[in-house]
């Protein structure tokens, strides 16, 4: 229940240029969106890191869709319990006041919108809120896991991802090119360059990564980008 401040992960720093956010900074910025009392589902990858940056005075509880509410940090070495894992199959602990349930109850929570926020990664996001994050045609398909249920259900979905792919191509598109995970569901995107809301008219630029210019963001965004007035830098 208290903030999970001690999760230690082996972090791969982003290979983007210095000015852009690294994975931890993206997570840190997303953590600012958390509100006291929220139940939150964090996907694998950058979203998992959000747990390390819960703001002071904010209590949130983490839901893991394999059947766990009140997920705590990783166990101390030697205290791993094979019967207590998260949706990423990592050994975890439970916070005081947590609970265990079966998979149908877990998705009852998710589908029934009792979980206030879902944070997940994506390969592509379209400016209407469509998201693609589970399948690349021609490559081995591993499955959607719980992602389709999560994006179809949550009221509040934040995507955490890099702004462009390894080839430098925009991941914020007019239309997704990959098979969809969900339609018109993403509400906000936090990338290594910017914070953007999804609006009926496209991506609305809210904040820039420190030192990144609006022009650079514009150049890296293929979808419709709305820029109104001065765009402040993110605060950490």
């Amino acid at each position, binding site marked *: 229940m208290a903030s999970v401040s001690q999760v230690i992960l082996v972090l791969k720093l982003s290979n983007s240029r210095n000015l852009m956010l690294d994975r931890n900074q993206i997570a840190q910025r997303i953590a600012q969106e958390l509100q006291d009392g929220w139940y939150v589902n964090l996907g694998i990858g950058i979203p998992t890191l959000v747990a390390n940056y819960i703001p002071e005075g904010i209590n949130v509880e983490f839901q893991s869709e394999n059947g766990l509410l009140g997920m705590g940090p990783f166990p101390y070495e030697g205290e791993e319990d*094979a019967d207590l894992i998260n949706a990423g199959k990592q050994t975890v602990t439970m916070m005081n006041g947590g609970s265990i349930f079966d*998979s*149908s109850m877990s998705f009852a929570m998710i*589908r029934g919108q009792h979980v206030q926020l879902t944070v997940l990664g994506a390969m592509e996001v379209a400016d209407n809120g469509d998201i693609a994050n589970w399948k690349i045609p021609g490559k081995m398909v591993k499955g959607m896991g719980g992602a*389709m249920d999560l994006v*179809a259900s949550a009221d509040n979905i934040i995507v955490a991802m890099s702004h462009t792919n390894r080839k430098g191509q925009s991941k914020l598109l007019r239309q997704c090119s990959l098979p969809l995970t969900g339609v018109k569901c993403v509400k906000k995107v936090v990338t290594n360059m910017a914070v953007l809301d999804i609006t009926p008219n496209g991506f609305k630029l809210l904040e820039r990564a420190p030192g990144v210019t609006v022009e650079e963001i514009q150049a890296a965004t293929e979808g419709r980008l709305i820029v109104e007035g001065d765009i402040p830098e993110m605060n950490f």
Partner: protein
Amino acid sequence: MNKLVESAKEGIAGVKDGMTLMLGGFGLCGIPENCISALVESGVKDLTCISNNAGVDDFGIGLMLQQRQVKKMISSYVGENDEFERQMLTGELEVDLIPQGSLAERCRAGGAGIPAFFTPAGYGTEVALGKEVRYFNGKPHILESALHADYALVKAWKGDRYGNIIFKGTARNFNPVMAMAGKITVVEVEELVEPGELDPNFIHIPGVFVQRIFEGKGYEKRIEQRTTRPKE
């Protein structure tokens, strides 16, 4: 009401080529290890396996894949398994991928006599292909159908010979809903207890859903992703 059988072999007795099985577990957590071993030993083949995941190369359903016993997998996520990938790419193995929540609810529906239900999950994706779409409160949903199995193979923590069972930690996962959905539900437990030892208020799955139960042996409970933090 005595559902006790002596061994995993007796538990899976009657499983025939071409049957549909449900196997509980999430990753390698809460999988019916003893039943899987018995299935491998039995040599039964052409199985359709409904399981959230497909094990790893040398554990869980992976062991059945090594023996080419599986014709089709119905799962939500099948990573971490080279032999699986090979069989899938060569077309030896059919794979039906289902959103995890729909998979769980479809199993529950099968056990609960609900033949079909609407869910928002998968609308607008290839999961929705060929499925009825209907709007409720302005939001699109697709119609999903119940899943059934000839045998449901379930791993529980403790149970009694009437078939009452309880689970521990996240080893619960898909086990309860699959226990409900099997024509024959076989439960392996870590510890067999006397009827009455389990508090009736806290039985996860009542014996009415269970046809066979036995105490499993030598649980390995392999951990897929051992993640820890140093002591402070």
